[in-house]
């Protein structure tokens, strides 16, 4: 991350780059922030809707356990949900949007499951800014890769984690 691409000047004004990286350091220092509770307890109707939509059939998920990749579902913001002011991922994306990098593209999701969640559990999540890397020349345009780390808990027990990476870019102008 301390490595500066040689072509930084050709992609982004040096002052803009310095400002972006300074903001990244500040937001990283927030650590695990934006803690939120899931709106609902882990529940069977939501599991059933997911199983039907995915076409996944299993007795296991009618006997008290939730599919592991639903971990993120429980803490989604929902319709019209608002991000907290100090949400590290969105704060960093806003910095880049304000600097002209208004395109956004999800590039990587790396989820790990400590265990499967059980019906009736209250899940909460925290988000931290993990890294900001760039500027890079990509097929979409010049941009920065922003990686956040989400951690899900039941009580004090960690149950799942996710590294999530987006590319924030200046869209190429097509003739």
């Amino acid at each position, binding site marked *: 991350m301390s490595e500066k691409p040689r072509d930084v000047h050709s992609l982004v004004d040096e002052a803009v780059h310095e400002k972006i990286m300074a903001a990244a350091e500040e937001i990283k220092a927030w650590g695990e922030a934006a803690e939120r509770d899931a709106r609902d307890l882990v529940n069977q109707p939501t599991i059933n*809707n997911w199983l039907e939509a*995915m076409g*996944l059939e299993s007795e*296991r998920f009618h006997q008290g356990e939730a599919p*592991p990749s*639903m971990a993120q579902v429980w803490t989604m913001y929902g319709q*019209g949900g608002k991000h907290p002011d100090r949400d590290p991922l969105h704060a960093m994306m806003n910095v880049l949007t304000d600097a002209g990098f208004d395109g956004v593209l999800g590039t990587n*999701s*790396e989820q790990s499951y400590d265990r499967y969640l059980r019906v009736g559990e209250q899940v909460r999540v925290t988000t931290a800014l993990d890294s900001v890397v760039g500027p890079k020349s990509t097929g979409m345009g010049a941009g920065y890769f922003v990686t956040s780390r989400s951690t899900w808990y039941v009580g004090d027990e960690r149950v799942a984690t996710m590294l999530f990476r987006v590319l924030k870019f200046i869209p190429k102008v097509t003739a």
Partner: protein
Amino acid sequence: MKAGDEIPVWELPITPTLVVSTALATRDFQDVHHDRDRAQAAGSKDIFMNILTSTALCERYVTDWAGTDVQIKGISIRLGAPAYPYDTLSFSGEVTDVTDGIATISVTGAVSLGAHVTGTVRVAA
């Protein structure tokens, strides 16, 4: 489960209903996953599959083969070409490694534009 085991190809037709119902079932209400006008205004050809669903379909692909009794430890994916309605999502996969009781399965979900998702699913073997 052993290195070299191949998972049979699974072809999933992508319909608007699939894209919309899976987006909502994962509680993802971003308009590009259910509103074609908004998706096109944002520069997209059509609505497209959301990332939580790409992850979930990797889970389904592996457990349709291995059974849901296996314990999934993680799913890591890289996103590529968008998955649009009226295309087909074609999954292929292979066990690449089994070490210390954990099998690593490489998975690719391809659409006509190329790889939509490439990644690994780790399961307790």
